[in-house]
């Protein structure tokens, strides 16, 4: 029973963390309905273009007084063949060439269009023969001039031109559509980012920390007024950093460390001797950039899971180092008895999902979830995919590592050059 009660609060936290996770919209991948309407539009375009070509040919026949059933059939066959070929070209384009640049595309069109035009004309020869045979009772006099090599060449060029025209139309429309969907994707990302920021703010102001700090300050005012004034200023600084973090993408490590120190001083009021901190900061890393509050969130998690739930408290280690790839920040903390227990079950669930070194969902069981998700979102937003946060829990401790690639770090190698 006691064990049950112990785990219930983290469960509530985990629930809310999961709710947050569910809200994350799926990136890109158009909905099936959108894809279907796209296909319909494409087919309609094909039909319109080629039936338009067919009608134009008929009009030409009327204008030149050559209107005959056999010729109408020939032109219909031509349009159908062209439609088939153009569809094949479009399919090829969509499968292989969507990412090609214009020169490469033009180069391939330069041989594909004449070749397909030739194919169409070749396929037309037997068709013309069949139609001619069917209408042989009528006027054979105006036998299709396809046998004459020069005429065939003219028809071939005509077909190539109309196919090229089609290609230009198709590519223009495709470009337009893609630009529009890119714009849509951009707006979607923007709103996602905004939402993440809101979540970040909401969860960052750790109300429990805030009210405990205020309560402790109230007691401290009576005991040590001078220290209380100092701590009050620190609280103001921490709050300001949290509120400003929305507008700041990255700050220097030394600025971040100032916030973390202030935060830890305030938590020492709460936990006294139970909270020990060991710093190991490489001075050369102080000027490097880190996403605002990234380290702070990790330290907050460390206090929550390594200090608050352990009667004996523990020691949090904060280590920074620089290597050629960038800035490495490590936060280590012992794990509470309850956390170590739930971790076991969480770990198996995590491997089942096929994720490695990212016990994100599982960590949500112990309340790790929201803050770390925010750190990840911010890493992605401000530093791209190369930045990384890894969690390595062991039976008794947790190690969180932030890997932040730096542009133009004054590393040893570059200074030697």
């Amino acid at each position, binding site marked *: 029973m006691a064990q049950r*009660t112990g785990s219930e609060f983290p469960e509530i936290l985990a629930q809310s963390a999961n709710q947050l996770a569910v809200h994350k919209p799926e990136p890109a991948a158009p909905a099936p309905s959108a894809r279907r309407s796209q296909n319909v539009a494409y087919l309609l375009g094909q039909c319109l273009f080629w039936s338009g070509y067919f009608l134009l040919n008929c009009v030409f026949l009327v204008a030149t007084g050559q209107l005959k059933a056999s010729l109408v059939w020939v032109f219909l066959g031509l349009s159908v063949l062209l439609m088939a070929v153009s569809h094949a070209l479009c399919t090829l384009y969509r499968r292989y060439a969507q990412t090609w640049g214009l020169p490469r595309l033009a180069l391939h069109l330069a041989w594909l269009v004449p070749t397909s035009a030739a194919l169409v004309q070749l396929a037309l020869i037997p068709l013309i023969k069949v139609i001619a045979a069917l209408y042989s009772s009528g006027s054979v006099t105006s036998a299709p001039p396809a046998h004459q090599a020069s005429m065939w060449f003219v028809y071939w060029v005509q077909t190539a031109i109309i196919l090229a025209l089609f290609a230009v139309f198709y590519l223009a429309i495709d470009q337009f559509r893609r630009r529009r969907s890119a714009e849509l994707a951009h707006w979607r990302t923007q709103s996602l980012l905004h939402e993440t920021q809101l979540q970040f703010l909401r969860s960052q102001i750790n109300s429990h920390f805030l009210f405990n700090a205020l*309560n402790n300050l*109230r*007691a*401290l005012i009576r005991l040590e007024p001078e220290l209380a004034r100092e701590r009050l200023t620190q609280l103001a600084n921490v709050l300001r950093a949290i509120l400003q973090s929305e507008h700041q993408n990255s700050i220097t490590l030394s600025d971040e460390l100032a916030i973390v120190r202030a935060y830890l001083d305030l938590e020492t009021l709460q936990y006294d001797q139970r909270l020990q901190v060991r710093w190991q900061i490489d001075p050369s890393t102080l000027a490097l950039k880190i996403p605002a509050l990234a380290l702070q969130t990790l330290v907050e998690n460390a206090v929550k899971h390594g200090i608050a739930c352990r009667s004996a408290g523990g020691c949090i280690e904060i280590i920074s180092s620089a290597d050629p790839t960038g800035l490495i920040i490590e936060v280590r903390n012992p794990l509470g008895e309850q956390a170590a227990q739930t971790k076991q079950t969480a770990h198996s669930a995590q491997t089942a999902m096929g994720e490695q070194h990212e016990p994100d969902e599982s960590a949500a069981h112990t309340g790790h979830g929201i803050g770390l998700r925010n750190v990840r979102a911010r890493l992605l937003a401000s530093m791209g995919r190369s930045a990384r946060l890894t969690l390595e829990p062991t039976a008794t401790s947790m190690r969180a590592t932030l890997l932040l690639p730096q542009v133009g770090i004054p590393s040893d190698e570059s200074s030697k050059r």
Partner: protein
Amino acid sequence: MHILIVEDSRLARLELRSLLAELDLLALGLASAEPALRVDEASTVAEGILRVDALRPDVLLLDIQLPDGDGFTLLQKISHMPQVIFTTAFDHYALRAFQVNALDYLQKPIERERLALALKKARSRLPETETKSEAGEPNRPSRVKTRQDQIFIKDGERCYFVRLHEVQLFEVEGNYARAHFRDQKPMLARALNYLEQRLDPTQFFRASRQHLINLEHIQSISADVGDGLSVQLKNGRVIEVSRRQARALRELLEL
């Protein structure tokens, strides 16, 4: 009035102490005798359990988040149940769990007036009969509970404070027991045999292997086939009393 503070932050304990010291307890009618106020402290759940059972305080000022568990764990493990006032920094979600609001809670930093009010409320709920059985009876740690005593029940997410006289019956369910009071019936992680030992035998009667009924809640009793009895409770439930227990019930109710 004897108060036990269970709180892990040293400064928060100090703050509570000084708030209590500032209260004019006599004016508030909270104390009448000279050592008006006695305040003790504990900083963990384990220590809290020991001190509650050893010191038997009137009022518990209980923080919810403690290093080795939460306040609810403590409440489930103590055998003496004081009046409980929760103190919390920001745990509204935890307090929402309460179905029966037979307690008060204070948000830190605590206002002096709110504290005074909460203590006054707690005072009014203290059993009048107990004119302070000085510092408890440590040699009788698991005394029998009487009708005015409160018990704390936590069933899953829900918590209840209930006075024993409100409980209509306890019913066996698996290895545990289910309490029925008002329209609630939460589970207790206790065997019925254990409850029978802890409860006042003149109030709670073991009607059968499955049922422990509150005599105050009996509506009527009718004779059954053989020597058995049927007891109808005020809530409409009919409980059959086994033959052997029927005799005991008759003896209990006879003048």
